[in-house]
Structure formats: structure tokens, C-alpha cells
């Protein structure tokens, strides 16, 4: 069913009893041309673009849990394209362009809201770095504005501008096209659109092994039986290391836990996305009124999807340092997601040493905003066996070749990006 004002009106007249499921729930077939492991945003987007851009029809997406239950539903929903290094800049901008047309493309409202993002600077040196970043962005045709303290104060009046502020606000780099999207809707929208193009989305189907013969993948073992495939794409986020180990691969990746928080809902307080420059902290307000915020990793290897109290304290201390009024709010929910931290902070989309097995991972904190372009480029890579020009720098071999994309300049440390 195509969603429109007409379909909504018709459903209303029949008491909303005739809505059909948004995607099919098929039994797995014995084999597929392409199997995508991981039914998160990236896996579903990959399947969608495989079908839409490349005409591949015989595709399965295998999800161990349910659609929207992993990192796609656990992030803080921020979308931006303010990257500076190598292939990152154009890749994330292409993602932004896809976001801008995504609701129409998928016929599903992903509630993309370009409310603008402020990256705050707290010292002259930090402003110099932000201006440099802004210049690189503008050279690549991406919108970026450098704002001084007065302009920031005018637009974000509730931050701490007092003389006793722990980290004085000097200015900000502003990207007006950045914003947020409804993260569940992204998974649902891609799932529905992919299913409509014939993709089999198989939930509650965990991959337990990879069939590899003579250095070539021939299929996957799952909790719902063996599924044959010539081409297999891994898009399993925090479980990249775990699944790659089934192919005998050690990746330049560690899995870490990252926590997110939502406060009780309040009236509109924060109109934009704000990234604190003094500590790792970011905040926005959802359409329901809850403030959505997040901070740093807990800092140790984890697959647990739950974190510990020191990271909670660190995040909330950052919130109050930035915006003292927040100390009166209650936290409604907090949760953890497992992120695959690569050794340079940039993603991997490319081939592995196993023929026919491709990896899409290492997204660190930044996977959500990349969802459309990641699917777009991974689909291209799976079909052609070589990367799209936008993901040409995201190879697995770059670490061995010394051409890492180290956006933060933090060196080979998985928990420092």
C-alpha cells in the first residue's frame, strides 16, 4: 500500500482496522544471490539500494532480533556532514543529500528535521580548528558558518555564558542543514521499501557460522537453517568482530558500549542540535519534548548493551556544565548500544580476504547519519566487487597500508575516537 493523504483518509473512514503489515515476514529460502547479515539501518538500506539501483531481486536480510532493536533504535538520532578528512567529507555529504529526499524516496516519513547543529568552541585554538574544518566543508560545497559568541548566545540563550562557566563559549561552527531524524522510522521505512522490491527480511534468524570453501563464501549457517549465497555482506555493527571471527578474521575493531539518555518531556527548550566542544557531549530535543543526550564510551570492551555509572556521571556533568538549568530535569530512560570502534575512527566498507564476503562496519559513534550513503555504497561494492568512489578510502587494508582516516588524530586507539 502506498502511503498518502488519501490512504490515511480511507483508513480513518474504516476505523483504522485495515492497515496491513509494512513488510512481509517470509520463511527463508534455501539460497539467495545476496545475503545481508544484520537488519539494522545499514543492512536494510543496502538491500534497498541493491534492489532499486542495481536491479538485484534475490536478496535476504538476516536479523538476529527484530527490526529496529539494535543500534538503529539506540542512537541519539543526529545527522550532520561536518567531516574533514579524506573520503569522509564527500561520503557524509552524499548521505546528507540522500537524507534530504529520503521520506519521499521511501514513501515513509522519517521525520528528518534540518534544525541545524552547533559545534561549540571553548578556546581560540579550538575555534581555529573549527574554522579550518568549516573551510574544508565549504570547499566541498557543504554549508558551514562560523559564529562568534554573541551570535551563539542569541540563538542558544540558555547555555552557561556566566563568568564562572567552567568552559567559556567562544563561538561555534554551525551547519544549518544538519539535524535529526526519527531513527526507528528509518529502519521501518527501509524495511518496508526493500520488502516492496522483493527483499526477504528474516527476523529472529541469528547467523551461527559462515560456510567458506577454498577461500570463498558459499553460504551461512543460521538458527533457522543453512542459507546459500555467493555474496554475503556483513552489516552487524557492534558484532562485526564476533561475526568476522567466524571467518577467521581479526579486525582492526573493538566493541565498546555507548550510553544514551532521554529526560522527561518538557516544552521546547533546545531548538537545534548542540555538540559541546569541551567534553564529548551532544544534546537535542525530540518532537515529544524529551531531551536526547549522549556522551563518551564507557571505555572497555563490551557486548553487553548496558553501561556503568561513571559514564552516566560524566555525561550528566557535561550536560549541567553546558546548560545549568538541566540539573532540575529527571532522566526518564537510559540505555546502552554496542558500537564497533575502528582503530582510526572511520568506517570500513569493502572486501575481506574471503572471496564473496564483504564488510560494512567500524562505524564508531557515527553510523546513524551514514545510513543512506552506507547502504548506497555497500550495495555498489557488493554488485561490482569493488568500491564506489565515495567509499574507495574505507578499505580494510588501509590500516596495514598506513593510510588511515584519523579524523581526530588520536592514533591507533579504538576507544579514543
Amino acid at each position, binding site marked *: 500500500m502506498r502511503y498518502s493523504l488519501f490512504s490515511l483518509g480511507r483508513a480513518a473512514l474504516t476505523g483504522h482496522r485495515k492497515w496491513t503489515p509494512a513488510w512481509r515476514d517470509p520463511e527463508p529460502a534455501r539460497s539467495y544471490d545476496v545475503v545481508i547479515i544484520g537488519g539494522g539501518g545499514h543492512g536494510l538500506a543496502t538491500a534497498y539500494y541493491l534492489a532499486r539501483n542495481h536491479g538485484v531481486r534475490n536478496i535476504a536480510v538476516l536479523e538476529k532480533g527484530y527490526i529496529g532493536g539494535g543500534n538503529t533504535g539506540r542512537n541519539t538520532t543526529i545527522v550532520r556532514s561536518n567531516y574533514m578528512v579524506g573520503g569522509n567529507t564527500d561520503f557524509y555529504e552524499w548521505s546528507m543529500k540522500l537524507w534530504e529526499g529520503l521520506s519521499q524516496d521511501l514513501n515513509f516519513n522519517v521525520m528528518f528535521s534540518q534544525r541545524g547543529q552547533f559545534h561549540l568552541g571553548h578556546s581560540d585554538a579550538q575555534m581555529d580548528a573549527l574554522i579550518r574544518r568549516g573551510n574544508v566543508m565549504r570547499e566541498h560545497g557543504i554549508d558551514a558558518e562560523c559564529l562568534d559568541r554573541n551570535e551563539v548566545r542569541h540563538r542558544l540563550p540558555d547555555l552557561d555564558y556566566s563568568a564562572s562557566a567552567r568552559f567559556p563559549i567562544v563561538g561555534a561552527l554551525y551547519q544549518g542543514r544538519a539535524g535529526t531524524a526519527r531513527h526507528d522510522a528509518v529502519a521501518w521505512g527501509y524495511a518496508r521499501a526493500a520488502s516492496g522490491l522483493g527483499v526477504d527480511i528474516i527476523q529472529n534468524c541469528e547467523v551461527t557460522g559462515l560456510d567458506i570453501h577454498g577461500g570463498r563464501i558459499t553460504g551461512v549457517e543460521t538458527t533457522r537453517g543453512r542459507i546459500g549465497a555467493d555474496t554475503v555482506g556483513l552489516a552487524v555493527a557492534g558484532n562485526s*568482530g564476533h561475526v568476522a571471527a567466524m571467518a577467521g578474521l*581479526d579486525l*582492526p575493531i573493538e566493541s565498546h558500549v555507548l550510553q544514551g539518555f532521554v529526560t522527561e518531556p518538557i516544552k521546547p527548550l533546545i531548538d537545534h542540535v548542540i555538540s559541546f566542544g569541551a567534553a564529548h557531549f551532544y544534546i537535542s530535543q525530540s518532537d515529544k519534548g524529551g531531551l536526547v543526550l549522549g556522551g563518551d564510551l564507557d*571505555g*572497555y*570492551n563490551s557486548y553487553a548493551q548496558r553501561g556503568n555509572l561513571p559514564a552516566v556521571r560524566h555525561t550528566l556533568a557535561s550536560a549541567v556544565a553546558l546548560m545549568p538549568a538541566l540539573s532540575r530535569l529527571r532522566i526518564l530512560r537510559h540505555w546502552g548500544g554496542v558500537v564497533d570502534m575502528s582503530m582510526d575512527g572511520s568506517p570500513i566498507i569493502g572486501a575481506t580476504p574471503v572471496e564473496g564476503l564483504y564488510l560494512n562496519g567500524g562505524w564508531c559513534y557515527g553510523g546513524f547519519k551514514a545510513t543512506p550513503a552506507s547502504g548506497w555504497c555497500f550495495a555498489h561494492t557488493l554488485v561490482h566487487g569493488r568500491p564506489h568512489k565515495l567509499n574507495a578510502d574505507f578499505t580494510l587494508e588501509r590500516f*596495514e597500508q598506513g593510510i588511515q582516516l584519523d579524523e581526530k588524530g588520536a592514533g591507533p586507539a579504538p576507544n579514543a575516537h
Partner: protein
Amino acid sequence: MMRITCPFCGPRDHAEFLYGGDAWRQRPAEDDPDPAAWYRYVFTRSNPRGAHREYWQHVHGCRMWLCVTRDTRDHGIAEAAFAGPDTSDNTPAPAARTEEEHS
């Protein structure tokens, strides 16, 4: 809250400790010319979903480096011992690493 039982100080909150990462990594000899060995040491990690051997330094206590076995699925700690020649599975002493990190 995770608690690590330091063999010297007793059970302490993990906030007293600094995480030192994967203890299975083997540092090649200083004169090892093989780039693949250095790549494995610098970049790749075992990253298991399950038991993980890892270093923690008790920075707000005795300052000793510990070798801890912890389950990455539930954060349960099975064992914590001083890192070094006495580590039960003969994991190499991190002394060289420690000096490097603080130099």
C-alpha cells in the same frame, strides 16, 4: 558498577582503574622487520564476545597493572591477578608497555 578485586587493595570500583586493553596482543621483538606482525600488534584485536583477557592499572590505588579475565557479555569478572611473569597463563609482562605509555 563493576568491581575489580585488586590482589593488593581488595575489591574496588572500576572507576579507580585505567583500562589497558587486550592482554592477548603480543608485541613483536624490537628488531622484528615483519610489517604484518607489527600490523597485528598495533591494529588488530581479538575482540571476543565472551571471556576477554585485558589489562587494568589501579591508578587510584596501588598503581599495579592487573591482568583481568572479564566476560564482555555481562561484565562478570572471573579473575584478576598482577600482570607479569606470575600471570597464570604466562601472558607477557606489560612492563615494557607501561614504561612506554608513561614516558
